[in-house]
């Protein structure tokens, strides 16, 4: 780590003072250098490469992200051995810089709607690639705009006059040596965005661009020289990369939220404001109940998501092991779990970062706090790799299917096994009968049961509403659409239950008693705060009484005071260095104001004592009047 942190080649000016082009330039410079050093040190293990990269770029996105994160892995999983020989080593050595071009201007999450075509021409044994409409232009892929010279392009395959659906093709887009776009290729940067300044997200338009037959990734599906199409064994396998990335994003939610909490909580311990008691010195803002109520539940969520991230990564490893063995039985559950948790955690973290920023008052709005940057970098996770609402509805489909299975007498396994407890007969008007008679609000295990009951109740209500619409309207798709708000709510409750369950399960694995006590408080806060934010569900389902909701609210406030003395230590435990955090407000030493003044002096507007616009615009008006 020190190797990189102290390497003068990896130092640069504060990014906040750089223009977009300068930021791209800096990121590319560091990426190129990083690859040279990786070669020099002989680092090749993927985990080590990831670690190295994250340190070099301090957790920020960079133009080679898609090359390393999508292009290379896709080659590994979907290319034939011959194709790997041709492309993998050159790409590993960065002779080929690749990207992954899936999203189009007109279509994102709905993959089947993509419009780019690849038509096979048996005469020349080539595919002819076309972007037939404006909406079919590839749009958004990182590194595509200015950096990459190859792209894996997803296109609708046409052979022998028939459409065979989406397939992946390796397409050279720029001339090796000059980096000029190849004839038939129009490529460029899509312009400024909310964040991701250092990445050249790009567009790609192809006009009758031909590539050899061997450039289609053919480990699973194949097109033979005469144009005969050979089907893959399972069409679900190609989605493996996406499931992996969604699992990774859950971990990103934890990281972004824990960074924000570190900054906000440290700053709240430095900032003083107003009086709590007349005549006494101004207290730290962290001593205000309202400030604690903003920040501590987020701190608890950061820990919860951290554990969920680890859990989901382990689950992914385990299940993908099974898949390699040919066992696909757990794939639907894995898919539903990653889709739902990706949406659930990114939504919460996204709102949480903003809450942290606003909890820092005006200074949170300055780029020096680093919070604006964390936010704009994180917020696209709600959209990319599957738009969150669409993800929630995919998980809902799995929940409803599991519910139906239970109804027809089958048992379901995994995270939805609670649905097995539903009473078999569904005629009686009232909802679930079996629920914990008494919820113990100081017992995480009992709270898991309460969340379970809420999920059961909401899944069942959504399923019943769906059934009622089906009986009423008969059209399956209309019924689904007019129930979708309920379905999203049910999925949300399901995910919330899973998170509380994982957090609670983690407690028993902690051997150090003091640590376990602190984390138990956090876990309780996470669970109880969730109830106090959604009391309607628990009341309406009859899981809790008015008196209990009152106790929950009271207990939440008590927990705030209990956690207060450990709050700073709990964020220190995330172990972010000052360099990595990059925040004036979140400094470990708390020296906020002096540093902020020094930082501001470096602002580009301060480069001269009198700004040139004074001479150009203000002076003329002031002397004329």
């Amino acid at each position, binding site marked *: 780590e020190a190797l990189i942190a102290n390497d003068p080649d990896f130092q640069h000016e504060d990014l906040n003072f750089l223009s977009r082009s300068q930021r791209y330039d800096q990121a590319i410079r560091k990426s190129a250098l990083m690859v040279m050093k990786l070669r020099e040190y002989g680092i090749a293990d993927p985990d080590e490469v990831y670690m190295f990269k994250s340190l070099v770029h301090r957790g920020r996105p960079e133009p080679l992200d898609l090359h390393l994160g999508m292009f290379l892995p896709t080659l590994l999983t979907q290319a034939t051995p011959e194709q790997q020989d041709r492309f993998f080593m050159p790409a590993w050595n960065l002779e080929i810089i690749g990207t992954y071009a899936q999203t189009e201007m*007109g279509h994102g999450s709905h993959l089947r709607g993509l419009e780019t075509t690849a038509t096979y021409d048996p005469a020349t044994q080539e595919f002819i690639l076309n972007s037939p409409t404006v909406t079919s232009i590839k749009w958004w892929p990182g590194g595509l705009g200015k950096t990459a010279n190859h792209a894996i392009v997803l296109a609708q395959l046409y052979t022998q006059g028939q459409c065979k659906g989406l397939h992946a093709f390796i397409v050279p887009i720029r001339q090796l040596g000059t980096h000029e776009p190849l004839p038939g290729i129009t490529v460029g940067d899509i312009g400024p965005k909310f964040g991701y300044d250092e990445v050249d997200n790009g567009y790609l338009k192809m006009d009758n661009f031909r590539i050899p037959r061997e450039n289609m990734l053919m480990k699973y599906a194949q097109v033979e020289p005469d144009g005969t199409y050979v089907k893959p064994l399972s069409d679900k396998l190609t989605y493996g990369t996406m499931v992996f990335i969604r699992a990774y994003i859950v971990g990103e939610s934890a990281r972004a939220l824990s960074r924000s909490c570190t900054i906000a909580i440290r700053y709240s311990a430095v900032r003083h404001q107003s009086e709590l008691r007349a005549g006494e010195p101004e207290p730290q803002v962290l001593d205000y109940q309202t400030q604690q109520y903003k920040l501590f539940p987020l701190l608890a969520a950061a820990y919860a998501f951290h554990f969920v991230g680890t859990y989901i990564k382990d689950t992914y490893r385990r299940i993908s092991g099974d898949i390699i063995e040919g066992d696909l039985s757990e794939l639907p559950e894995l898919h539903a779990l990653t889709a739902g948790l990706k949406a659930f955690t990114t939504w919460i973290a996204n709102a949480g970062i903003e809450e942290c920023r606003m909890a820092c008052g005006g200074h949170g709005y300055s780029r020096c706090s680093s919070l604006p940057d964390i936010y704009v970098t994180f917020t696209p996770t709600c959209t990319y790799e599957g738009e969150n609402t669409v993800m929630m509805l995919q998980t809902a489909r799995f929940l409803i299917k599991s519910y139906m299975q239970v109804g027809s007498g089958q048992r379901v396994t995994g995270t939805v096994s609670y649905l097995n407890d539903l009473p078999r007969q569904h005629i009686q008007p009232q909802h679930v009968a079996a629920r914990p008679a008494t919820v113990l609000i100081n017992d995480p295990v009992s709270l898991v049961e309460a969340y379970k009951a809420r999920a059961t109740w909401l899944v069942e209500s959504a399923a019943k509403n769906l059934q009622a619409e089906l009986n009423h309207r008969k059209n399956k798709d209309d019924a689904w659409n007019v129930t979708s708000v309920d379905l999203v709510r049910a999925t949300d409750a399901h995910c919330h239950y899973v998170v509380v369950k994982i957090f609670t399960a983690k407690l028993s694995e902690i051997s150090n008693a003091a640590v376990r006590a602190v984390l138990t408080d956090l876990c309780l806060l996470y669970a109880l705060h969730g109830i106090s934010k959604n009391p309607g569900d628990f009341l*309406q389902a009859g899981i809790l009484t008015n008196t209990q909701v009152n106790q929950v609210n009271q207990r939440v406030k008590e927990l705030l005071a209990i956690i207060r003395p450990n709050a700073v230590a709990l964020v220190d435990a995330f172990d972010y260095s000052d360099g990595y955090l990059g925040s004036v407000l979140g400094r470990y030493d708390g020296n906020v104001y002096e540093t902020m003044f020094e930082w501001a002096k470096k602002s580009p507007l301060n480069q001269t004592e009198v700004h040139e616009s004074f001479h150009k615009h203000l002076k003329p008006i002031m002397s004329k009047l």
Partner: protein
Amino acid sequence: EQTIPHCLTVEAIESDPVFSQENQYFQSQNERYEAAVRRAVYLQKKIREMGWSETGPEFQYIYRCLSGDVALLLHRVFIRSISVLGSDEQIAKWIPLATDYRIIGSYAQTELGHGTYLQGLETTAVFDTATQEFILNTPKISAMKWWPGDMGRSATHSLVFAQLYVHGKCYGVHPFILQIRSLQDHSPCPGVTVGDIGPKMNFQHTDNGFLRLQNVRVPRENMLSKFCEVQPDGTYVRWGSQKINYFTMTSVRIAILPGEVILPLMKACTIAIRYSAVRRQSKLKPGEQEAKILDYQTQQQKLLPQLATAYAFHFINTYLHELFNRGYQDIQGKNFDSLPELHAFSSGFKAMVSQHCTSGVEICLRACGGHGYSLLSGLPSLYTRIIASCIYEGENTVLFLQTARFLIKCFMAASAGQPIPPSVTYLSSVKPGKCPAKDKSDFLSPETYLKAYEQMAIRLISSSAAKLQHLIQSGVTKYEAWNQCTVQLERAAKAHCHYITVKNFVETVEKLDNKAGIQKIMKHLCDLFALHGIFTNMGDFLYDGYLTAAHMDLVTASYLDLLAVIRKDAVPLVDAFDFTDKNLNSALGSYDGQVYQRLYEGARRSPTNQQGNPAYGKYLKPLLQNTLSKL
């Protein structure tokens, strides 16, 4: 009737290339600032040419047209503060100088270490009887003025708020007119250190500044003295409430709402709803064309409540402005009775409106999928700008608590049978038992949901008051008790403001009885706004016991039905906000729906595609060739 001057103003501004915002998304901080100054100066010329009034309605149109992307706005706050707080002599001296732009003013209140809590400000102004001057100092680093707009690079003068000391005694915060830069060469005056505070999330066009003062002297006459004065011998005289010093701030909180807070939500709704009527995704029914995303219930659930909110706030804004104009006249007549209520109103509504609008804009942004993330959509810059409104002019939590303080006071007064201000008379109404609604259509009756809101607000206020009382009686100090209740108090203040907004929406709809068509649509929006509030705060309503779990199913059903009803009018309802394409400046929100064409054209104009790629020559090429030679 207002539309004719409006159209002429819009036309005059939009046809002028100096005011074009076309390249805004591609500019650096320095370029944005310079363009904003250039516009501000050019605008003065234009105003004179066209004979517009700076105080009349035209300025509202101009501001709307320029989307606030213009410098020297704090100069106007400077002028307004002097007019409200200055003596007749001070007004006669400073106002002409400022209106003729012989000086450029700013308003310096916030410091590095203190913002919303004004009594904590640390800048000092010590009166020196010998020279009849005030000596201004920022005694430590946290006392430095920080954030004031137009101050970093532009202003020559600033209205500086400082703790007044006379003969060693502190008299609290007062405003002083201070020259900070030379009128000849714009260099900082002796003892003054001033500059820009660096990049922010947005407001790149504004030079928010820092100001450090070391023994800077201003004459005695530079303390604004309409309501209080330091006489030559050092005697301190006061004529009005000290709170009056904050009246500018109180009225600014209301003044920012239409342009800085509600307008961005209207723009965001326009962009997101128009785009959702163009974007197609997946199929609702097999075999049919892909559906417009606006036909998905989940998309309607995101956007249509925001649309209803924009209308609700448009109406509450009208109400607040009428209230404040009356209050302003009272104060000019030195009648300060309405100040506490005005203060409570401005705090609570500034906080609620900015909070809802900010989250609304963000919902719109995220409802536009990936393209919402492109600056070309216009949404990121709307968002990064509006979120500042949750902090500036008073941090929202602190403001809610100020309103809560007022509510608790009124509640206590009402319980003791004393008279209370008109806006809170509902606090003394009698509690009925249960909501009588039996059918989902009953929840389309304003009477039904208003009663539910009223009950909920009363319950939250009375239970916080009871808790507070209880703590104090059990021996907890007043301050500690207050802190322990703040989470509940904040909720109570929100409930109060929410209730007033729903009530005002209902009353506005009733007044539309001469326009049946519009009234019908507005009634739907009003119902949606009210039911959305119940749907998303179910717990509060259930807890109260006024509504039951069965009622909630009716509310949900009625609420979801309304989405489909309003869907039909959604596009005309945003068209009615009447933004021109230039003003929206969004590839996704244009009136003609040519979304994809505009995105592509926007991208091609981007500087990244206009210039060569220096990074290739400098870094990529050596890297590629280094490998090539090795292989």
